[in-house]
């Protein structure tokens, strides 16, 4: 693989990056992290619609309601 960045290898690929994944939630793609309690916490919203970023239920740090989460394969 060819990388073009001033960062070192270990900054790009840290040793411990477990629990992060992409899910679909309310029709949008989210980058989430599993918390210690088994809940999913929003890390980053991946959307091209700027109005989504003004939606208060989609701000980073929000704990997602499980019934609306769809796992992505």
């Amino acid at each position, binding site marked *: 693989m060819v990388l073009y960045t001033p960062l070192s290898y270990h*900054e790009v690929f840290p040793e411990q990056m477990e629990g992060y994944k992409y899910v679909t939630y309310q029709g949008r793609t989210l980058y989430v992290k599993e918390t210690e309690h088994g809940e999913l916490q929003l890390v*980053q919203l991946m959307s091209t619609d*700027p109005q989504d970023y003004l939606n208060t239920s989609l701000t980073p740090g929000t704990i997602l309601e499980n019934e609306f989460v769809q796992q992505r394969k």
Partner: protein
Amino acid sequence: MKDEKENEEQAEDISPSEIVEKIKELGQTNVPEAPESNIHVLTIIGQVEGHMQLPPQNKTTKYEHILPQLIAIEQNPKIEGVIILLNTVGGDVEAGLALSEMIASMSKPSVSIVLGGGHSIGVPIATAANYSFIAPTATMTIHPIRLTGLVIGVPQTFEYLDKMQDRVIQFVVNHSNISEKHFKELMFAKGNLTRDIGTNLVGVEAVDYKLINDVGGVKDAMSKINELISKVKQGNDL
């Protein structure tokens, strides 16, 4: 008739059990909402997170969320102005400058209030707004930028740092009334900060140095943003 149609349209988005719950609790399907505000608030708090995610116990400002929000604010016709609240210890220079440039290049008026602290990269972010206020007890630390990571001991490293620092200096000088000479004096002052180089400005001192427009708080910022909004409506430049 019209109400029934509106309710039907909105009901399609909500599941039937939610509607039943709402009727049980409130006796109606639609809860009256507060009117939408024409002014949005952006909070720049904690550390300005950069290209690396900070450990979770840090309070952070995530630029990847705020940048699209600024586009949304620029695009949304209902939003007429932005108030930026700052209480930051600083953070990543690139993320901070990205936020500052976005704020500065919006067509809609913006007013910033420095509360608590507006340190380091908080300085360009505060000056990026059309008008800036600082609370009387708020403080801003002006100091040279610092580098983390693997540092190679050659003169080019210093020249690189100097170039990066110039980016910040140029932005602040271009977006405030402070001169480059005075800003550099504050930045390189010795004897003010413990074990560091720079200056700590408290409240009115930032205004005296012409870095921040005025001392003030919520009331002053609100009246200023409304003043700027009506200026824009009348077709005048900000």
